[in-house]
């Protein structure tokens, strides 16, 4: 077990444990804090996958912007810990539980059947491409940010424009939603 494996297990446990702690914590603020732990663990896993740009983006966007937004809303609404437990009926719980466990067992069986191909040691990990920008339509994996830019500006030109338009639509939608809604008399 080398250092990279050790780091992988450390951050895997950190992200999964943070996620579980988030789900099980009753208070929204502590849930948000555990979510930051989980997101930073995921960012570290991105680094271990040699995708440094996405790791930085993960920390900036998720651990920065999204979590600040969540904490701001928690503060604005003054949400307390969730009180009392109301259980679903046993029949409903049983049906959902049965369905989820059937799906889980099916997936595990499928994974078990193809286990030989899934063991990561058997995979010939391709070397990272030396040239950061490739003219071929198949974009090779690269650690360079310029490869991302090249891919986004050539093969993914339309999706990035749609994403930009979607961000604009989301922004306008949020502004309209958070505006004071006029009463019926004002509208008429």
């Amino acid at each position, binding site marked *: 077990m080398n250092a990279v494996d050790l780091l992988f297990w450390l951050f895997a446990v950190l992200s999964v444990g943070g996620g579980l702690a988030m789900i099980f914590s009753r208070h929204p603020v502590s849930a948000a804090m555990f979510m930051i732990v989980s997101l930073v663990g995921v960012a570290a896993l991105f680094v271990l996958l040699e995708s440094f740009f996405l790791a930085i983006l993960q920390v900036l966007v998720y651990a920065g912007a999204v979590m600040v937004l969540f904490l701001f809303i928690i503060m604005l609404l003054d*949400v307390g810990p*969730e009180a009392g437990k109301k259980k679903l009926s046993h029949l409903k719980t049983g049906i959902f539980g049965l369905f989820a466990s059937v799906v889980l067992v099916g997936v595990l069986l499928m994974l078990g059947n193809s286990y030989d191909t899934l063991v990561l040691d058997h995979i010939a990990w391709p070397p990272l491409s030396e040239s950061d920008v490739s003219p071929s339509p198949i974009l090779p994996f690269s650690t360079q940010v310029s490869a991302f830019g090249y891919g986004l500006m050539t093969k*993914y030109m339309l999706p990035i424009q749609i994403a930009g338009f*979607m961000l604009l639509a989301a922004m306008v*939608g949020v502004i309209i939603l*958070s505006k004071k809604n006029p009463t019926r008399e004002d509208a008429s």
Partner: protein
Amino acid sequence: MIRRNVLLMLMSLELMLNGINIALLTFSRVGSNLDGGIFVFFIMTVAAAEVAVGLALLVALYKKRNSVLSDDMGLLKN
């Protein structure tokens, strides 16, 4: 154990999208193809926009119903 807080539901949604991101990036790395990485980029964009809209909706609902629990939002029930 059931969570009825819509804020926590949105957080869990983010967590699920993160899991998808890890899977996509791993396959992208193993298959030596940048498409997965770029898709992760787009998923992050969509997730950020979705959180912004979701939280704005939640604030608007809170102003109306004075609660963030999904039980209190069954407007169309009955």
